[in-house]
């Protein structure tokens, strides 16, 4: 079972529980603590640990890699876990969340100094009441934000999905009533995306959990065009030389659905991970 679903006690997928999107939900204040933008009160520790993990990898010191990776994993688990979400669930999230606003991506800003200055460029999305406070921290929201209607949000997601971006939902700690504080829905690309990179390159699981789905190909329909191979950012799909069909390694699949939305003959379907006993604990 997905540990978020377990933690938040939801019957189905945790982020599709309408109770997690109430307007009244706001991040729970820590007693005596001061509100810090982006839930970055632990940021220093995170960067310190990431530095240590990187250093340990550089020195190829297995003991240190394990020690610091575990600490970083725990830190992400408690503070800012993300999970991969397919396009169809992004649509549903747009129905539940209010308000929704597009804004600049903080990862591409940090890793490539890409300054997204206007609505055409914004590739990240903020969800929930926190967005009403964006003007307090213009450095985080460089170039401003654009509030979107549900329909505009769907078109915006279509654009980024078509471009080949993986969607992920971001949680910033706990909100009132023990619910997750769902703060963002992002369009992500390796290597610019920091969560994608930390999960794929350093194996830190809780920075980004796999989604609730896996992609299953229909070999009768597959024409072997290779579009899915090109769209997969997780290295889960290869062209099987002997059959000239797409072969999907579902253990590597994160369930982002980019292969499904890109397939010209609809040969790929997203199935629930729980349907396959051996994949139930693969997050």
């Amino acid at each position, binding site marked *: 079972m997905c540990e978020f679903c377990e933690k938040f006690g939801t019957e189905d997928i945790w982020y599709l529980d309408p109770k997690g999107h109430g307007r009244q939900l706001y991040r729970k204040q820590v007693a005596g603590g001061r509100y810090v933008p982006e839930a970055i009160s632990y940021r220093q520790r995170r960067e310190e640990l990431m530095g240590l993990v*990187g*250093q340990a990898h550089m*020195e190829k010191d297995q003991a240190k890699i394990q020690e610091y990776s575990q600490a970083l994993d725990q830190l992400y688990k408690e503070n800012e876990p993300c999970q991969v979400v397919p396009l169809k669930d992004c649509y549903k999230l747009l129905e539940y969340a209010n308000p929704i606003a597009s804004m600049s991506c903080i990862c591409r800003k940090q890793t490539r100094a890409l300054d997204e200055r206007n609505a055409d460029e914004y590739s990240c999305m903020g969800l929930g009441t926190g967005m009403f406070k964006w003007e307090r921290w213009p450095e985080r929201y460089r170039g401003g934000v654009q509030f979107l209607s549900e329909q505009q949000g769907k078109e915006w997601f279509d654009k980024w999905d078509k471009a080949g971006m993986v969607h992920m939902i971001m949680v910033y700690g706990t909100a009132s009533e023990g619910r997750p504080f769902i703060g963002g829905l992002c369009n992500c690309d390796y290597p610019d995306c920091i969560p994608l990179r930390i999960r794929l390159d350093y194996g830190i699981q809780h920075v980004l959990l796999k989604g609730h789905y896996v992609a299953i190909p229909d070999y009768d329909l597959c024409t072997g065009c290779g579009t899915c191979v090109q769209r997969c950012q997780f290295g889960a799909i290869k062209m099987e030389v002997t059959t000239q069909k797409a072969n999907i390694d579902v253990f590597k699949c994160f369930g982002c659905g980019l292969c499904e939305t890109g397939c010209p003959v609809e040969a790929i379907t997203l199935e629930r991970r729980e349907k396959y006993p051996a994949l139930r604990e693969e997050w």
Partner: protein
Amino acid sequence: MAHQRIEIDHAKCTTPYACKKCLQICPMAVFGVAPMKMEKFKETDENEPGAFKLRVAFGDKCIVCNECVEVCPVHALTVTYA
């Protein structure tokens, strides 16, 4: 064990967010840049010296191609493998 070392001379590299040359040329996206101050109601000026700081985020991915060293307009970077 021999490994990569990327040295940044912060006295020379003062406006990395405005310059962004090394950040964008790196084939392995090794660098990171962060604002040094977050002020309420104010966007940080990318041309203000010291307002942003360049750092090595994923140093173990560096392949020592020296593209960043060559592109840096203020010669602030040194990359070695020893």
